[in-house]
């Protein structure tokens, strides 16, 4: 009977109950949307870093990372790349020659990181070809072709076909200069990297650095299934025994920190939304209790004990939550599913976002685990919010309650 009374009680004041239900729905929906949007943004950023910059695994000479000197190389990388690629779990492998230096145009100069790449293998690795906005992706056939970022081109005041000079030290610590012609200008989603990274033919850079054929500074591996990352790392040790093998989380600790901080972010955002929800529920249920003081007094007088009164008030809140939660959850899930496919276009802010390495189209996404957290927190909040109004009802003295106007 208590279940029946509580259920009917919530429909006595339909508008008020619908306001509470709506606030629960909006609360859950907003929580899911904000978290999925943020996670979509971070995930995009992580994917951008992994698939367009770092790859899943990188192998270097153990000293290369510390000294950042091109003389620390991995030998025979062509053969090693072939061996790695022969493993079915690996999607692609590429080797890179890397040096740091200066790029000089007729008007100005800038510090750059020079990547000597094999254009063909990078098409399946960092897919730089997709970012080319002007010119072509190493299609001229000339060995001194260079691909630079749009921001760097603007800084250097150079255009397509302009001549630039790269200056760097070779492995013998001699200063080397090489003239290059801009064959393509690219624009990635990370403007800050566009200003620093330049790409040239690997063979040409290797010659300028005086490295032996098939000597590289970096081997990058993309795997098919990220869950197999650890086993592939172990497999790579067998092929490059003296190399330092690191996955993307080790190469870019800030990315793994993003994932960890996102979990904290989940609780903070949910907490803020639920705090607002708490006050809404307390206010409504308190009003509902105060409006029924005489009725509650009558119930106590005819024999309904305080424990049952408490349960009745708690049940009323529970029912409101039970109606609001699945609707909020469903609408949140539908929003995430739909926008996860179509994406949210933030192109009007893309300049600002790109400078932080974020894409202009955000695809909201949320793990199932986060849905469970939001729903659990919402249910717990609703129950906790009902305690105070129910407690107030327990404080009533039946005779005083009946006398109340």
């Amino acid at each position, binding site marked *: 009977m208590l279940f*029946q*009374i509580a259920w*009917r009680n919530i429909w006595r004041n339909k508008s008020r109950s619908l306001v509470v239900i709506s606030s629960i729905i909006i609360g859950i929906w907003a929580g899911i949307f904000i978290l999925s949007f943020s996670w979509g943004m971070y995930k995009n950023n992580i994917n951008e870093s992994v698939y367009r910059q770092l790859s899943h695994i990188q192998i270097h000479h153990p000293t290369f990372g510390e000294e950042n000197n091109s003389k620390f190389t991995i030998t025979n990388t062509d053969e090693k790349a072939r061996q790695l690629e022969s493993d079915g779990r690996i999607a692609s492998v590429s080797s890179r020659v890397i040096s740091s230096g200066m790029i000089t145009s007729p008007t100005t100069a800038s510090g750059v990181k020079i990547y000597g790449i094999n254009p063909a293998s990078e098409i399946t690795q960092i897919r730089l070809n997709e970012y080319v906005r002007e010119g072509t992706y190493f299609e001229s056939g000339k060995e001194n072709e260079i691909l630079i970022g749009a921001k760097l081109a603007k800084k250097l005041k150079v255009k397509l076909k302009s001549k630039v000079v790269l200056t760097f030290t070779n492995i013998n610590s001699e200063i080397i200069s090489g003239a290059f012609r801009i064959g393509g200008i690219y624009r990635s989603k990370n403007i800050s990297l566009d200003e620093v990274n330049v790409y040239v033919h690997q063979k040409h850079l290797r010659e300028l650095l005086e490295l032996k054929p098939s000597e590289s500074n970096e081997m990058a591996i993309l795997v098919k299934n990220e869950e197999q990352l650890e086993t592939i790392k172990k497999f790579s040790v067998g092929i490059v025994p003296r190399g330092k093998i690191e996955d993307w989380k080790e190469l870019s600790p800030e990315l793994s920190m993003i994932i960890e901080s996102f979990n904290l972010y989940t609780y903070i955002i949910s907490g803020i939304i639920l705090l607002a929800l708490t006050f809404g529920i307390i206010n409504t249920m308190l009003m509902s209790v105060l409006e029924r003081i005489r*009725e509650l007094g*009558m119930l106590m007088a*005819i024999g309904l004990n*305080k424990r049952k009164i408490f349960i009745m008030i708690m049940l009323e809140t529970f029912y409101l939550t039970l109606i609001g939660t699945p609707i909020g959850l469903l609408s949140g899930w539908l929003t995430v599913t739909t926008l996860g496919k179509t994406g949210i276009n933030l192109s009007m802010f893309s300049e600002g976002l790109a400078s932080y390495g974020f894409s202009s189209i955000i695809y909201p996404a949320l793990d199932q685990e986060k849905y469970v957290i939001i729903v659990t927190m919402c249910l717990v909040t609703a129950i906790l919010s009902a305690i105070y109004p129910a407690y107030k009802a327990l404080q009533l003295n039946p005779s005083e309650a*009946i006398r109340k106007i």
Partner: protein
Amino acid sequence: MAKTIIDAHNVSKTFNPKTIPVHAVQDVHVHIEEGEFVALVGPSGSGKSTLLNMMGGLDEPTEGTVFIDGVEITKLSENKLIDFRLHNIGFVFQSFNLIPVLTAKENVGFVLQLQNMPKTEREKRVLALLEEVGLKDKINSRPGELSGGQQQRVAVARALASKPKIILADEPTANLDSKSAANLLDIMAKLNKEEKITFLFSTHDQRVIRKARRVITLVDGKIESDVEQTPS
């Protein structure tokens, strides 16, 4: 000799004892026997509702003791008192008598459900009670769909449901028209006569007073007169 059903000894009730004390009931002694039909009368503020509440275990006296059917209810814990009321006392209030979200049948059955009466037996008794108060055709109506008089009759049926020893009614006819009030009083008088249920009313309604066989008059929280009469 009739059995004593209510025995209130030197009962006093003071509201706001620490600030501005209001002595609602002062040193009252009331002795009511089984099957009596008593009207507690007096002007507004005379303390009749307070005395009634104390005799029904809804309010605790500041001083004195109340015995119902030999049980000293002033010594019972809150939960035991609620349970005692459930099984021994029926209440009819002036207004807000029924649970608005339940039908007449459910309102009457509510008390029986609290007593854990089996469903079949409960339904049988509820129908019999509603028939007795003349509302057999309104069993599925909610309080909002019933007139004031009909609501009070449902309240009487509910008060009777647990087969209480006494029924306490606080101004039961205050919001009723003459016809409804007369009808309600007839039902109560019949139940009193046929089932020997003790009725105690707080009222200043002459229609109720005329029906009572005993009239206790309270003035300023004290008993001014306690007389027996022949009901008209």
